[in-house]
């Protein structure tokens, strides 16, 4: 029984990782931009959820309002800053986006202070299902898992099955050719970028009630996000999902069965996979 619950823990953690990393793999893989500030948007999402939920009294209202703010911010940032980075050296992208991390952290400190804050779980989902004599499973965590699965399905459908997805994929292979076919590639990039950031912010919003809201929360998730993206294959949504689930499994079972190695079990997994497939599991050709 305990093993089954640990399996559930692994899947649940893996799905959350997928949600965190999906926006990164989109922006990194399709636009070729390394966005170090990805974690900052996770943090921005969490703080927006905290602030708007307190103002409106409901997380359900805070999420769409917050998403609107982030998408607007994403479109502006893309037009003002990121548009200049396409096709440039990755080092310059790292420099710019690292600068953004510092700016967002400082703004966060000025606007919200440096305390740890909590967001209440919506009353509708604030209960637990008893699994064993002592242990219950919080329904909110299961709800997060459901949302992650839904997002994975929508993203897969959008990119693989729709006309828009076709244009996005074409744009990532040959930007100029797509442009000469009369497609407004700038608008598409702007959209992808905003969606990538919105996904990170959404992850922050939906995780806020269970993870709390605190300074530096963005940088904490950034590394594991890159691990997911690299293992899965840069730009592959399917890869990100598989990689996230593998990491969830490795991390959870590592903590239980090999506690002394749990700190680096995930990185060991990454090393092994990269030796076997240097491109990651599902890199598109």
């Amino acid at each position, binding site marked *: *029984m*305990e093993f089954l*619950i*640990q399996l559930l*823990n*692994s899947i*649940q*953690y893996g799905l959350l990782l997928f949600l965190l990393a999906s926006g990164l793999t989109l922006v990194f893989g399709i636009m070729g931009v390394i966005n170090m500030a990805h974690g900052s948007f996770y943090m921005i999402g969490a703080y927006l959820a905290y602030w708007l939920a307190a103002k409106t009294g409901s997380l359900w209202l805070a999420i769409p309002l917050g998403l609107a703010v982030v998408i607007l911010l994403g479109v502006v940032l893309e037009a003002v800053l990121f548009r200049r980075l396409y096709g440039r050296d990755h080092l310059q992208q790292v420099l710019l986006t690292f600068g953004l991390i510092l700016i967002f952290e400082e703004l966060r*400190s000025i606007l919200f*202070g*440096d*305390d*740890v*804050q*909590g967001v*209440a779980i919506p009353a509708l989902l604030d209960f*637990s299902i*008893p699994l*064993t*004599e*002592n*242990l*219950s*499973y*919080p329904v*909110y*965590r299961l709800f997060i898992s459901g949302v992650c699965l839904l997002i994975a399905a929508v993203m897969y459908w959008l990119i693989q099955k729709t006309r828009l997805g076709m244009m996005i994929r074409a744009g990532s292979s040959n930007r100029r050719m797509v442009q000469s076919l009369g497609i407004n590639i700038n608008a598409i990039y702007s959209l992808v970028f905003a969606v990538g950031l919105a996904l990170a912010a959404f992850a922050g919003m939906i995780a806020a009630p*269970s*993870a*709390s*809201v*605190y*300074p*530096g*929360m963005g940088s*904490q998730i950034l590394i594991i996000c890159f691990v997911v993206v690299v293992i899965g294959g840069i730009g592959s949504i399917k890869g990100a999902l598989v990689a996230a689930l593998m990491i969830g499994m490795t*991390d*959870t*079972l590592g*903590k*239980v069965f090999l*506690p002394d190695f*749990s*700190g680096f079990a995930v990185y060991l997994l990454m090393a092994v996979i990269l030796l076997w497939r240097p491109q990651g599991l599902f890199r598109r050709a």
Partner: protein
Amino acid sequence: MHNDSTSKNARRHFLATAGALSTGLLLPDRFALAQTAARIRVGLMLPYTGTYAPLGNAITNGFKLAVAERGGKLGGREIDYFTVDDESDPAKGPENANKLVQRDKVDVLIGTVHSGVAMGMVKIARDTGTLLIIPNAGVNAATGGLCAPNIFRTSFSSWQTSYPLGKVLADRGHKKVITIGWKYSFAEESVEAFSEGFAKAGGKVVKELWVPFPTVEFQALLTQIASLKPDAVYAFFAGAGAAKFVKDYAAAGLKGKIPLYGSGFLTDGVLEAQGEAAEGLETTLHYGDGIDTARNRDFRAAYAKTFNSQPDVYAVQGYDAALLLGGGLDAVKGNISDKKPLIAAMEKVKIDSPRGPWTMSKAHNPVQDIYLRKVVNKQNKVTGVAAKGVEDPARGCKLL
């Protein structure tokens, strides 16, 4: 930004005077020396940015409040403050401490919050002989293996805050306990101290669970706790980790079935974020809410009036740092350059602290009461004394 405005004004005033004199009398250098010797140079090396910024500010406020209550003077001498933001970055610790000692020529270093950074300050203090007062960092070695005549602490040692809890749990009839904490030195020292106290009182730690610092994914270990069914759980987390752990513990249905205890850092400064999940939780620390003494009430009122916020344990530790320095300087009439008599005087100071009176141990760590506290209505209410006059064993200290 963090330069103290009074010191700036003082400096400006001094420069103006010195400038006027230098043109008139051509005696600037001698005058300057006489002037600076009359003031005490205090180097505050604390975190003013990052996660620990509120702690650094509380310590600074506490220190300045105590100085203000003594008429802005310690040992009859006025204070010049020199401030460095240590960013809680251990890599920059020695360098920042050196800046204050070598460049600013401070008489005394006050700092810091993060134990890793404090170890860098300890090194510089030992190398240069500069007086150091630690107003928070609990790392055992600072007043243990690395203790020195010129190093004092006004806060606690990791050992002190967790050792007494062991007996509390044993007295309540808990026999099998699981410990859980972050894998880093402060948590490891705390868990070790708890286990020592618990074993001595006849209990047994059946399993130690560790989480890599600073990750906050606890679900796998909570599942393990549920299936091992201990009598109680001792947890060491702080800040965001503490907030999430306490909430996850409650959400997993463990709260109310397996009692959770911890050192006070599990619930200090994070009760707002923990909300309902923390209600009823019991912890040990050297300070808490509702210590009903005139001393504490006066301190809290004065602090709230001056800074428009409620003081916490960190403010008390900063306050006591100034009481210690002031007490020592009073006894030697403000002579800070002669270190030996000053240190001897500081060792004898009885600190009339808001937390309750305490004295210095031979290793220069407070001998103090450790309170048992219970979370009631988002406050860490003191419900009793877990152990009276707790003295850190100061293992490896050569001052003993």
